[in-house]
């Protein structure tokens, strides 16, 4: 039934690859959990007994549109969009420099600088930021010393960003999100910029384009797949960051966590979890229609 292996399998990963190759339906097992999630979201919870009723219903999805739940979804959407944009703006010059100018040791320094933070624990980094942003933290101290506390106070007085310090303001949550997701934006961006040959930029200049025209018409479209790839990560906002830094307003991740843990409402947790998947699908479909993947 199966063709004889041409190369002997070496090691576990080779054998595992072989298994998936010969029996692709094994891969379905990996998707199984996703299917279970989808299934759960169509059940509902009996509000009186708290028992999950295993009957098909859209009631749970309707619950997502209650004001407090809609609030969570919108907050997540806005945060993800703003974090994505900030990451893209910050990542672009770094990725561009690394792809076009960094050579030899500079390139190594770039990779080390971008990846090193990924090696330390996520929790440690978030707590470190809490300290940095706290009222008595280094940022506040430096602002006091240089007489620039009015900037921080200004940010904290913007409606929607209020807080006693940056570490309890949604702006703090935003900063930490940006910090955590920046590497995931830089790396795919750098990879897509690296594939743009110098001759393409020269061709653009040769045909009369100014630097900004070359940027808009050639570099940006060619980097776009990298930006999209990077932004997919930023949507998977975790629940830990807003619990530690910020005003404890809930995001989808936290809602899922609380619904399935504290509240025991697994159907609603599942329905919440489906939302970012849907958002991503719509987002990718729109990006594709807008031609973001034409350069692939």
């Amino acid at each position, binding site marked *: 039934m199966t063709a004889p292996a041409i190369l002997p399998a070496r090691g576990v990963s080779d054998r595992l690859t072989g298994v998936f190759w010969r029996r692709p339906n094994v891969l379905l097992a990996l998707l199984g959990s996703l299917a279970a999630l989808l299934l759960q979201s169509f059940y509902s919870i009996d509000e009186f007994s708290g028992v999950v009723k295993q009957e098909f219903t859209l009631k749970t999805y309707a619950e997502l549109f209650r004001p407090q739940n809609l609030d969570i979804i919108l907050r997540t959407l806005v945060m993800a969009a703003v974090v994505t944009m900030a990451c893209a703006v910050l990542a672009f010059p770094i990725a561009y420099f690394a792809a076009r100018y960094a050579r030899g040791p500079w390139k190594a320094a770039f990779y080390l600088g971008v990846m090193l933070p990924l090696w330390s624990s996520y929790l440690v980094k978030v707590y470190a930021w809490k300290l940095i942003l706290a009222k008595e933290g280094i940022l506040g101290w430096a602002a006091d010393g240089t007489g620039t506390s009015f900037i921080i106070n200004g940010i904290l007085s913007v409606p929607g960003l209020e807080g006693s310090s940056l570490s309890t303001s949604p702006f703090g949550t935003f900063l930490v999100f940006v910090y955590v997701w920046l590497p995931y934006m830089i790396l795919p961006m750098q990879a897509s910029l690296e594939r743009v*040959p110098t001759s393409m930029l*020269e*061709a653009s200049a*040769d*045909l*009369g384009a100014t630097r900004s025209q070359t940027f808009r018409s050639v570099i940006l479209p060619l980097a776009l797949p990298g930006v999209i790839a990077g932004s997919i990560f930023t949507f998977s906002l975790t629940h830990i960051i807003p619990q530690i830094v910020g005003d404890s307003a809930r995001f989808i991740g936290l809602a899922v966590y609380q619904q399935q843990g504290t509240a025991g409402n697994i159907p609603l947790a599942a329905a919440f979890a489906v939302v970012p998947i849907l958002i991503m699908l719509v987002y990718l479909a729109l990006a594709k229609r807008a031609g973001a993947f034409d*350069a692939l």
Partner: protein
Amino acid sequence: MTNAVEFSNVSRHFGLIKAVDGVDLAIAEGSFFAMLGPSGSGKTTCLRLISGFEKPTGGQIRIFGEDVSNTPPHLRNVNTVFQDYALFPHMNVRDNVAYGLMVKGMGRVARHAKAEEMLALVKLDAYGDRKPAQLSGGQRQRVALARALVNEPRVLLLDEPLGALDLKLREAMQDELKALQHRLGLTFVFVTHDQHEALSMADHLAVFNDGKIAQIGTPQDIYDRPATRFVADFVGSSNVLPPALTRALGGPEAWASLRPEATRLATTGPVRGRVTALRYLGSGTRVVLDANGTEIAALVPSGQPVPAEGETTAIAFEPSALHLMAGA
């Protein structure tokens, strides 16, 4: 008539490396000019100096009499066909060709009409909607050509234009480029390391070596009367005779070149030697003799008797076929 391109004592040094070193060059308007040389000889840097992607570290470059030494690429009336074509992968063929007009602010309808006109010129009328990835190598080359011509440059630069194509396509494109140049009456300057390409396409060529021009002239000049040993060696398959041998053949004591096709085999002659190699070329056979340590090749037309390897034979030629060269 002013020259299309003129170099006077132009140099481009990268640190200690003299990529281009004191080059004087004049390319007449309407000519098909080739810059020939091995890799690293400075020919590509010269092309980039004309296009404006490199600035000279010394000397002066004039395009149609105007000093452009410090003019950026887009302000020169010059466009380039890049070696890797450098087509924009996210745009279709029409938008690629119209790019030069788009950045100038021409409206969509007008620039697309002009692009279609250019595509018709390179016989790709029906391909406007395709992406570059959907084209063959030869078609991409044509798109690159159309894109470079859309801005109506007075000089078209081509960097190894046919290097990536297979032999048959290359020959077809050679004829087509020549025809296109003739029709448009533009000045074409192209860089190549392929001597056959340079000799068959160009009406004038410059042979580069070590950042300098070794010789400049018509293909006939270069082929029949190479100025230096390097040129004789690099262009075609001439025999290079050391001074002692030239003198033994009745000439002065100087380096000389002798084309294999100007020789014939004979029973007696000034050059005698053992046959060390035979190479059948279709139109004839190349016979290599070892004459006292110097390898000399003769071309025996097909149909004539060919000696066997190891036999001793002689080569005869008209004295006028012996061409003397400068020392280098």
